[in-house]
């Protein structure tokens, strides 16, 4: 914690050469207050959720289905399996498409062409569009192509659209950080542009691409709004088992449980929150490991 603080304040101090004027000290204090308020809120939230969850953090959470008749035995089995299905389907759709789009834009597209500039501007805008809009878009799409709403594939399409701009932007960033000398060297040795991208640029950019992609998938994993709009189910007692199977996901299940009047549901909601949190930490941890393991400084 202290090191983060020191890192954060160092540039301020360095720039003004140890500026101790009242204004800058006041600003520093304001920053610290803002930081501690945010951290404190997070800690309180985590601790209260964990306390609520404690009696329900057991095997039943992972093996039982949701139960209306006996809420004290309700579990998140269908939601966990549903989340995995949706997230894997999302990854399969979004990752190849996103990386390919980024390679085109970064390595091949002529930035002077109007259509490439238009794509670029739209990408930045799409990354800021609220998640629910992608849900509505997918609902419309599903209706047009005759796909039933509320199936894994529809949910995955919505989430893939949601994270596509993020994957493209982070992948482009990663490609851009590969030095031009690598490409020039490859081309000078007689490789074609395609070979250069495939054998030199892309492998060198993988740590950045993997980090950005995993963080994007984490975001998709935590989304409820677009899936609720798409008719994601809240009560199923079977394992989602295919792209055209109905599904529920952890965030949907948590949202539904938390709104129920029975205390037992609120406890199992807290337990599911902890499970989701664990899953997200695991994914983010994986992103950090990949980055540290394969990162290369040029």
């Amino acid at each position, binding site marked *: 914690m202290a090191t983060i603080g020191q890192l954060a304040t160092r540039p301020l101090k360095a720039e003004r050469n140890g500026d101790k004027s009242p204004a800058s000290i006041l600003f520093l204090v304001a920053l610290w207050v803002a930081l501690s308020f945010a951290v404190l809120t997070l800690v309180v939230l985590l601790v209260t959720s964990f306390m609520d969850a404690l009696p329900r953090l057991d095997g039943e959470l992972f093996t039982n289905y*949701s*139960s*209306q*008749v006996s809420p004290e035995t309700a579990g998140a089995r269908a939601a966990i*399996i549903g989340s*995995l*299905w949706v*997230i*894997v389907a999302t*990854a*399969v759709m979004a990752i190849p498409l996103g990386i390919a789009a980024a390679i085109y834009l970064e390595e091949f597209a002529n930035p002077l062409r109007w259509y490439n500039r238009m794509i670029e501007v739209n990408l930045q805008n799409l990354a800021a569009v609220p998640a629910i809009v992608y849900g509505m878009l997918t609902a419309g799409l599903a*209706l047009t192509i005759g796909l*039933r*709403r*509320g199936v894994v594939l529809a949910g995955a399409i919505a989430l893939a659209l949601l994270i596509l701009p993020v994957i493209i932007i982070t992948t482009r960033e990663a490609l851009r950080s590969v030095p031009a000398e*690598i490409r020039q060297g490859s081309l000078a040795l007689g490789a074609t542009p395609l070979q250069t991208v495939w*054998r*030199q640029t892309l*492998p*060198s950019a*993988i*740590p950045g691409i*993997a980090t950005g*992609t*995993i963080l994007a998938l984490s975001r998709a994993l935590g989304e409820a709004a677009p899936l*609720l*709009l798409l*008719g*994601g*189910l*809240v*009560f*199923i*007692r*079977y*394992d*989602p*088992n*295919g792209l055209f199977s*109905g599904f529920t996901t952890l965030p949907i299940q948590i949202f*539904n449980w*938390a*709104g*129920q*009047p*029975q*205390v037992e549901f*609120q406890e199992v909601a807290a337990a599911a929150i902890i499970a989701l949190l664990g899953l997200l930490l695991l994914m983010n941890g994986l992103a950090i490991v*990949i980055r540290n*393991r*394969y990162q290369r400084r040029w």
Partner: protein
Amino acid sequence: MTTSTLRRRSAPAAAVLTLALALSACGGSDDDGGGGGGGDALSGEVLVDGSSTVQPLTAAAGEYFAEEEPGVNVSVGTSGTGGGFEVFCQGETDISNASRPIKDEEIALCEENGIEFTELQVATDALTVVVSADNDFVDCLTTEELATLWGPAAEGTVTTWDQVNPEFPAEEIELYGPGTDSGTFDYFTDEINGEEGVSRTDYNASEDDNVIVQGVSGSANAIGYFGYTYYEENSDALKAVEIDSGEGCVAPSAETAQDGTYTPLSRPLFIYVSDTAASEKPEVKAFVDFYATNDDRIAEAAQYIPLNDEQRSALESAAESIG
């Protein structure tokens, strides 16, 4: 840069891919879904969507039904009453949960798509006006007083309790209520303010009724309203206000809602069954029959108020005539 370092770099990509395959294999291994069983055991899926208020009822019905017909998957969504009818009338779902009767334009949509349906009342809910258990001055409110309190004219002007009734103290009122997307809000405004959706807007609105519970129980001067179950679950911290609609004060309870004396805030909860689905899919028909004959314990499990004798026989005969 040798080829071996390049190969090593693509390892994370391979790792991610392997993980993805492993995960999908995990899901795939649960393929059979328990479809086995005896000779005439039913299988298939019953799709239900609609009101989140009715969802616990249909979920409980599905759970009990699974004990008899383990091969049938009943799944329930909560797109809201209106959202539920939209997909129901396009033939995407078999049954639609509703906390209000179907509207004319929704009937028109169903007709357009050739969907015929049957309306079944499956339980009763008593919208409950609550104050904190610490509140010692409000026991009963007339519907006029409620309208004074919640009407659009009250916005910004009715702020203290003595403005509602001179016998009440001149304390500031804290108002809590459901948000405008809620069927509870629609029903309450229709009955109390005379027009659906018309209400003062300067109150603490939440789509999560548990937030209203916390708000009202936290202050002796607060008042709010929601479904009866939320009061039942929190009756130690809350006091249910009796309602006087001209024939004396009546407290919300299973009895008063059943015999119709708790007016105007007791409301019917419905399911709408697609006749087409019921005749084409035997599992839908079987589920509806089961729902109708086991309605009492279903309502009990979902903590709603069961039907009275007259409503129950109406439900059973209506369910029988389907399909």
